[in-house]
């Protein structure tokens, strides 16, 4: 008996005014001409609600580049879904924000690349910081939830105290300091993005002290890079267990990165219902349960906690999507991760140029 998903990630577009070097979108971006129409998204939202989904995250690329965002939020609300917008804050003005809030927006998550203008522009490949500060201000004046999401990596982790200060000044209900995850463009840039062990340890102390100080005022969350962990993350809460993601062209995936896996056939909302895809598709069934698990996972006590880790990460690092996630200390391929960490923690670093995220045609 397969449980229902709880969240729908609605990747509305891959268009975006930013060019972040750590973007988790796939390297192959969906062309604008292939984006789903409003009616189709509205139907998908209805199917998601029927399937048991509680929350929809409108994301992208930059979801604000879709002119039909307010109608989509209205459609989500009409189906009883909690509507959340994951955004850079560009392009947005107060009038449009009011339109989104009247349409029924419940929550906005605003990304930050740094505590400072110039550095933010370096990582985003464009000037955006001042606009984000304005957007935070506008959101606070409206009755919707606000989360600030600071994207952390080696080049800005030393600013963490400044970021905490900025978060405290803005005072959202929640702040997430999230280390880059190594998929898409971030995988290409990983040797520049992974923090050193020393930076990571220092950051943990800063976050712990901030969490205590801000307790009851701001909920502080910290996501650390799992390359440094002993065991893998339960990626997405497990393959096809909690989350369903629909791409701009309507392909349905269990996560952001699953495109990289070879030999997977992803169904599309234009030809099948979300119910059918979630419950019956080959792709969703592929890594459910335990029968696919390799050793040592299939006999491991942790298998019902972390589900053998992340398939996409296993593939990216070992070229075998069924392998134990190599971040696991018990993984046969753990050495691959150790080598990357050794390179990152070497005292002298060679300058490597950034790979900036492109835009789809």
């Amino acid at each position, binding site marked *: 008996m397969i449980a229902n998903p709880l*969240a729908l990630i609605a990747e509305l577009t891959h268009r975006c005014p930013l060019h972040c070097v750590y973007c988790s979108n796939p390297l192959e971006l969906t062309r604008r001409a292939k984006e789903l129409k409003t009616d189709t998204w509205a139907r998908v939202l209805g199917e998601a609600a029927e399937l048991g989904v*509680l*929350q929809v995250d409108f994301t992208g690329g930059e979801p604000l580049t879709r002119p039909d965002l307010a109608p989509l939020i209205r459609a989500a609300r009409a189906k009883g879904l909690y509507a959340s917008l994951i955004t850079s804050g560009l392009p947005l003005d107060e009038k449009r924000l009011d339109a989104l809030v009247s349409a029924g927006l419940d929550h906005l*998550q605003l990304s930050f690349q740094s505590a400072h203008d110039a550095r933010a522009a370096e990582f985003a490949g464009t000037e955006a910081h001042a606009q984000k500060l304005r957007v935070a201000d506008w959101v606070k004046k409206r009755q919707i939830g606000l*989360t600030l999401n600071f994207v952390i990596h080696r080049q800005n982790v030393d600013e963490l105290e400044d970021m905490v200060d900025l978060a405290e000044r803005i005072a959202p209900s*929640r702040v997430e300091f999230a280390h880059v995850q190594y998929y898409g463009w971030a995988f290409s840039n990983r040797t520049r993005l992974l923090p050193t062990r020393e930076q990571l340890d220092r950051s943990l102390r800063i976050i712990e002290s901030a969490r205590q100080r801000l307790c*009851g005022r*701001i*909920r502080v969350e910290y996501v650390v890079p799992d390359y440094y962990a002993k065991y893998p993350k339960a990626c997405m809460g497990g393959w096809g267990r909690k989350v369903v993601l629909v791409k701009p062209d309507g392909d349905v995936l269990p996560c952001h990165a699953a495109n990289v896996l070879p030999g997977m056939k992803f169904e599309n909302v234009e030809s099948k219902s979300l119910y059918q895809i979630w419950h019956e598709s080959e792709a969703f069934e592929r890594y459910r349960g335990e029968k696919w698990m390799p050793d040592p996972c299939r006999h491991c006590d942790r298998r019902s906690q972390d589900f053998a880790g992340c398939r996409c990460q296993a593939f990216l690092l070992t070229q075998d999507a069924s392998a134990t996630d190599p971040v696991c200390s018990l993984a046969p391929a753990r050495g691959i991760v150790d080598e990357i960490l050794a390179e990152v923690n070497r005292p002298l670093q060679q300058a490597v140029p950034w790979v900036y995220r492109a835009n789809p045609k």
Partner: protein
Amino acid sequence: MPERALRLSGPSLAIVERCDGNHTVREIVTELQKLYSKAEPQKVETDIVDYLGRLHQERALDFE
């Protein structure tokens, strides 16, 4: 809540239903003491205050 859901039933549902901007904590306590008349009133009050405190810490609600 963003990225989290509360599964509510029984008492927790009765409490959260009343967090509507129109109930004081005292009113919620009184109503639930009536609703759960077999439970010890002091315990009902303590449980409610604890629960609301936890939700506040999680930033799921505010007191006005």
